């Protein structure tokens, strides 16, 4: 029972991550119709916002380490600690949550630049060309990050206070062994908040209404004299911010490296398509569905019956869903079907 409860939590947590990554992609891919292979790179850039912020915050005074004689080695003492003492240490400790503040404007800017500088010229080009140009862009972004930060993962821990695990079992009067890391719970809550915010934005604001209308029928909305293009630029910016935030918040769970975006790229496309093209709710639903199924498929009891099922479950589910539902879970007709 505990095991199942924990797997549900794992599933939700994974699902939250998948949904968050897929959300931005489906905004761009499912609705603007741009096959954006650079979406993973946006996720990665978000994660590196946290890394960069950490580097800035821990900018250190170098004190020569006399104990090492083979070469010049330095101990590093962050200036923040030198200047502010305890407060400085705390600020460094809180670097991941704080870097959200940095990530929002930075990612928005990156999104806008990307759309205005490149993507806008590709709305009318073939999907094949969109793939090539965004894939090229993704590689270039990756390589730039690699040249600055190396290829090795960089530890970006959560604040000390939430680094451990919450004893949920005790909280709900269940067994003591139901513990779950605070940060993963925070991530889940964060995912819900961001997803909710994006939905609310599209549902309840005039801007969102126009965007939704534009997604459904771009031509008509343009004929109404509304500048859809400009709104789409902003949608792209929002997608970049969502992807970036997903990246920032994921860093304590997965120490980021330059390749982390590529690792998530295929998965995020699968989630979006299983959810159904052009459907935000579908992408979110598919994210959680795949997350939970993946967690359960990894249980020893299941693996004993189907060896290796955890290796393929995501793709197996994708095949089953796409064969039983022609447009994924909640896809709209005619979007990216040709």
């Amino acid at each position, binding site marked *: 029972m505990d095991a199942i409860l924990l797997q549900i939590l794992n599933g939700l947590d994974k699902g939250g991550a998948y949904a968050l990554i897929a959300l931005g992609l489906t905004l761009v891919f499912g609705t603007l119709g741009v096959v954006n292979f650079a979406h993973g790179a946006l996720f990665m850039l978000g994660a590196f916002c946290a890394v960069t912020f950490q580097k800035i915050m821990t900018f250190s005074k170098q004190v020569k380490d006399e104990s090492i004689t083979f070469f010049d080695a330095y101990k590093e003492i962050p200036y923040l600690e030198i200047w502010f003492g305890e407060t400085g240490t705390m600020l460094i400790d809180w670097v991941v949550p704080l870097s959200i503040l940095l990530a929002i404007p930075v990612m928005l800017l990156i999104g806008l630049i990307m759309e205005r500088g490149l993507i806008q*010229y590709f709305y009318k080009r073939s999907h094949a060309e969109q793939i*090539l140009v965004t894939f090229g*862009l993704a590689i270039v972004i*990756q390589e730039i990050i690699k040249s600055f930060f190396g290829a090795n993962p960089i530890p970006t821990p959560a604040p000390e206070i939430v680094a451990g695990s919450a004893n949920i079992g005790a909280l709900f009067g269940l067994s003591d062994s139901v513990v779950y890391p605070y940060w993963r719970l925070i991530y889940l809550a964060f995912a819900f908040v961001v997803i909710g915010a994006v939905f609310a934005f599209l549902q309840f604001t005039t801007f969102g209404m126009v965007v939704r209308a534009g997604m459904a029928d771009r031509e008509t909305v343009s004929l109404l004299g509304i500048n859809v293009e400009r709104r789409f630029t902003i949608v792209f910016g929002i997608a970049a911010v969502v992807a970036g935030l997903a990246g920032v918040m994921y860093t304590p769970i997965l120490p980021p490296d330059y390749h982390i975006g590529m690792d998530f790229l295929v998965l995020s496309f699968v989630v979006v398509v299983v959810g159904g093209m052009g459907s935000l709710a579908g992408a979110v639903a598919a994210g959680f569905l795949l997350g939970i199924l993946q967690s359960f498929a990894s249980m020893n009891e299941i693996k004993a019956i189907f060896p290796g099922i955890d290796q393929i479950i995501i793709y197996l589910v*994708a095949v089953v869903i796409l*064969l039983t539902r022609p447009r994924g879970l909640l896809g709209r007709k005619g979007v*990216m079907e040709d």
Partner: protein
Amino acid sequence: MKIFKLSRNDTILMLGFAIAILLMPIWLQPIGAAYPDLLQKFAIFGLFAIGFNILFGLTGYLSFGHAVFLGIGSYTTVWTFKLLSMNVVPAVIFGTLLAGLFAVVIGYVSLRRTGIYFSILTLAFAQMSYNLAYSVLTPITNGETGLRVLRDDPRVLDGLFGVVQEGSPVGNFFGINMQGYPGFYFCAVVLIIGFFISLRIFRSPFGLKLTAIKSNQNRMRYTGFNTRPYLLWAFVISGMYAGMAGSLMAVTDPLAGAERMQWTASGEVVLMTILGGVGTLIGPMLGALLIKYFENIFSAFNESALHDMFSFLPSLLENLMVTVVHPFVGDGWHLTLGTLFMVIVIFLPGGLVEGVTRLFKRRKSDGVSAKNPGPES
């Protein structure tokens, strides 16, 4: 013979292609690409891309899992080497056929959907195959290490005909070892045949119908065509090309690894095709040349090689050039590749062939319309 018939322009194209491929060891010498392994890779990936283009270029169905057939072709070939004979003929035939068989199954299922849904289905099949081959199917695939030919494999046919293998077993074509240059020429001949078949398909009513399906599949149905079998045939043919390419990889180097089926490998052939020009005849070959060249040559530059290269310059300039070029070569070769993708697609819409054709046409604005029915070369 009727089966070899081609229009005059196509005959020139075909001859030009064959000569260019066969003479690669000569004209690639100045750019440092004329060594057997890379030449083999050019031919093999050219074949892969040309086959992929029959599906993607003609029907517009973008498969994101074609590497699975590459893998199946390789594994089957190595198994044929192990069980039957080191002769490459049965190995290539089996590899191609089994890939075709898998293509029938995967194609039949995936073609029930169109557009991105189709792409994700093919991707899913390939990723499942890759993941399983890497882990639980290790008894068949030898997992991470890759399936290899061993000296004490049974090789029933070789035993029957008394062929004795000395040293490490190497694929042979009736006694000619398929490594080094003979291996390249074998691949080159297969490639040229593959190109010829592709050319004929492009020029056939079958090809025209496939193009029409790409253009407007619904209309094809109301025009009286059952489009599904057409698509399936295109899928299977291109799957067999991939299987054959996989076979050739194992022929020239008797090892089959699971990575060959990973999505990055499927993505590579997509990129090759788009880079060269989707739906053009020689575009995919050019794309394959370009990507493989960058992968093998640009990654090999290191700082000392760069200094050698620029040593004719004054030392200040030499150092400057090395500093400028260095990020793009060696461990930075991906950067060059990414930049190349972007530059080509931005400045040459439609890929290399189409982009250059357009530029050419714009210059002499009185473009003569194609006399040949069927897509342009």
